[in-house]
């Protein structure tokens, strides 16, 4: 059953900036959908429009789920910093008319290890703890639809894992989740992904469908001299090439694999060149290059 549907949703700011262009999106019961894109892609504007906080300049939104069963965790911490953790939870419970919310509050705070801080002012929490509290507040009314705008930004890796464990548990209970993230590793938690850049959806599908669509082969090169090696690799005409730390990932058009790997391994400074499974990041870069008219958002 469809809970939320957006058709040709657009937002153009008065200065002419097109933050979101023709966004089509449908969220059904039990969905776990990720809106993936870098900073400035238009994700937050899209969320704000979906939640009715911003009026679209064009398009249509149809939300069949009642406000009582919808929760939204914005990107920026939006709880009252001068209320304690427990008071923020209690306020949310009262705004949603929840009866006897005490046990549920304790359950949620405990699951994200916030129970010990229930009397601390929300403004005095660390960035990660604030995000956890925002999630607890969002989950308190037992929503059927949960929208999370970059929920793990600023959260440490351990807390991030706890965060996602809780989200998976919530999802298993039947809650539809739409989340946004700039992190490609996190994006892979989504069952369905929308890749967004410059306000437009570049492509959408599952990780497997993206891998199938990605032409060529991806090679991972390990080297302590990344810059020099990256330059030398240009001679092999990569379709995409990017590196981080000691790793370079490059995509090449279909060609004899053995010769390619031998050639790359022979480059000065290269420790190892191996065939790699395409990641979401590889496909995102490919989709970006394919996009005809990138729009800044």
């Amino acid at each position, binding site marked *: 059953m469809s809970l939320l549907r957006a058709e040709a949703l657009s937002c153009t700011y008065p200065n002419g900036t097109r933050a979101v262009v023709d966004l089509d999106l449908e969220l059904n019961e039990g969905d776990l959908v990720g809106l993936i894109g870098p900073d400035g892609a238009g994700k937050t504007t899209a969320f704000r429009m979906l939640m009715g906080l911003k009026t679209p300049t064009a398009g249509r939104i149809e939300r069949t789920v009642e406000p009582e069963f919808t929760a*939204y965790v914005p990107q920026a911490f*939006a*709880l009252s*910093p001068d209320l304690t953790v427990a008071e923020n939870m209690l306020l949310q419970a009262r705004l949603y*008319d929840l009866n006897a919310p005490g046990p549920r509050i304790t359950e949620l705070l405990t699951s994200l290890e916030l129970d010990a801080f229930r009397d601390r002012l929300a403004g005095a929490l660390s960035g990660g703890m604030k995000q956890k509290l925002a999630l607890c507040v969002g989950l308190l009314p037992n929503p059927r639809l949960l929208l999370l705008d970059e929920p793990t930004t600023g959260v440490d890796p351990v807390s991030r894992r706890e965060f996602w464990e809780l989200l998976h548990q919530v999802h298993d209970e039947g809650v539809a989740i739409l989340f946004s993230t700039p992190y490609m590793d996190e994006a892979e938690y989504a069952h369905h992904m929308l890749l967004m850049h410059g306000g437009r959806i570049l492509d959408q599908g599952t990780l497997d469908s993206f891998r199938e669509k990605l032409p060529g082969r991806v090679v991972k090169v390990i080297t302590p001299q990344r810059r020099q090696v990256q330059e030398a690799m240009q001679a092999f005409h990569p379709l995409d090439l990017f590196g981080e730390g000691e790793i370079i990932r490059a995509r090449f058009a279909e060609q004899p694999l053995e010769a390619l790997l031998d050639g790359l391994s022979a480059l000065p400074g290269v420790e190892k060149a191996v065939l790699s499974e395409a990641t979401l990041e590889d496909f995102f870069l490919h989709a970006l290059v394919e996009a005809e008219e990138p729009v800044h958002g």
Partner: protein
Amino acid sequence: MWNRIRALVWKEFLQLRRDRLTLFMMLFIPLLQITIYGFLNNDVKHLPTIVLDESRSQESRDFVQAMTATQYFDVLGEVATEAQIRQTLDQGKSQVAIWFPPDYARKLRGGSTAQALVIVDASNATVANQAMAVAFGVGQTRGTALMFDRMGYGQATRPQHAIDLRIRPWYNPNLRTPNFILPGLVAIIVSMTCVMVASSSIVKEKERGTLDQVMVTPVRPLELFLGKVIPVIGMAYAQMTVLLLLSWGVFHVPIAGSIPLLYGSAFFFIVAMLGIGVRISTVAQSQAQASQMSFMMFLPMVFLSDYIFPLNGMPIPFRIIGELVPVTHFIRILRAIVLRGVGLEVIWIHLLKLAVFIVLIWSIAVKGMRRASS
């Protein structure tokens, strides 16, 4: 070192140039201040005056003429009874009444001392003091002149003083400063609370982004709005109660009129001031801007509201602004109920003006809220 200082100065100017509202306030507030301060005038002229002339004589008319010649008194007309004097003063239609008894002229002609009475509305002590001093001066001058006339014509070897002018300050007979200052101060303080608390509490939420979190809950816009303004109304009433209790208990300012009427009238005023606060919140982007704008509002509220400086002494444009300011009307309501002890029959006109202001300011505020939310 100078390069770094130059860089910091450059940064400050860049920021200032981009903060247009602060720049506007920096230029506009001093202009407003100097203009208002420049025109502030304690020399009150043209006080609305009525005459109860039971003497119906040339002598009484001469006295009235001498009073109006000072330009401090504008005679609006005559009344026929003492009750009408009370009525016009209660209603605030006149601030001064001159009363000549039937034997005024006869006593003057007969060489004895004639009495006349000047009644002054002393709920505004500044106005009353001046009116009384000028009236006293006129009585003295006129009496002395008549006495010399009598001496000159040899009617009396030991002439009596011709005019015994009695001056009666009503509503604040001892001309106590607290009676005059404190009711007005209640209006000023309550207005500051309403404007500053309402505007800053909304802007604070906007600044922190916390309004979004509430707006995505099942809370309806009206519920959100009432949730914001009810605490401010409660605070304003609590503040007003404390101030009135202190005025009465510590400074012995009596409350002559109906307390329920006072509290009912205050609701109109509080709602009007909340409208200003909400309007500011839709324009201001930060709490600092909201404070600056609130401060800009307080200047005309304090100086053009009849609180300390009488509006009668101001140039006409300032008097018009003063009449448009809700504080002016609430101060008049407060003084009318607290000092004069009058009721709805007198204050209804101020309530009506406040009601018109409420409709106007809330129309603007709601339009601003709609624009801001879209």
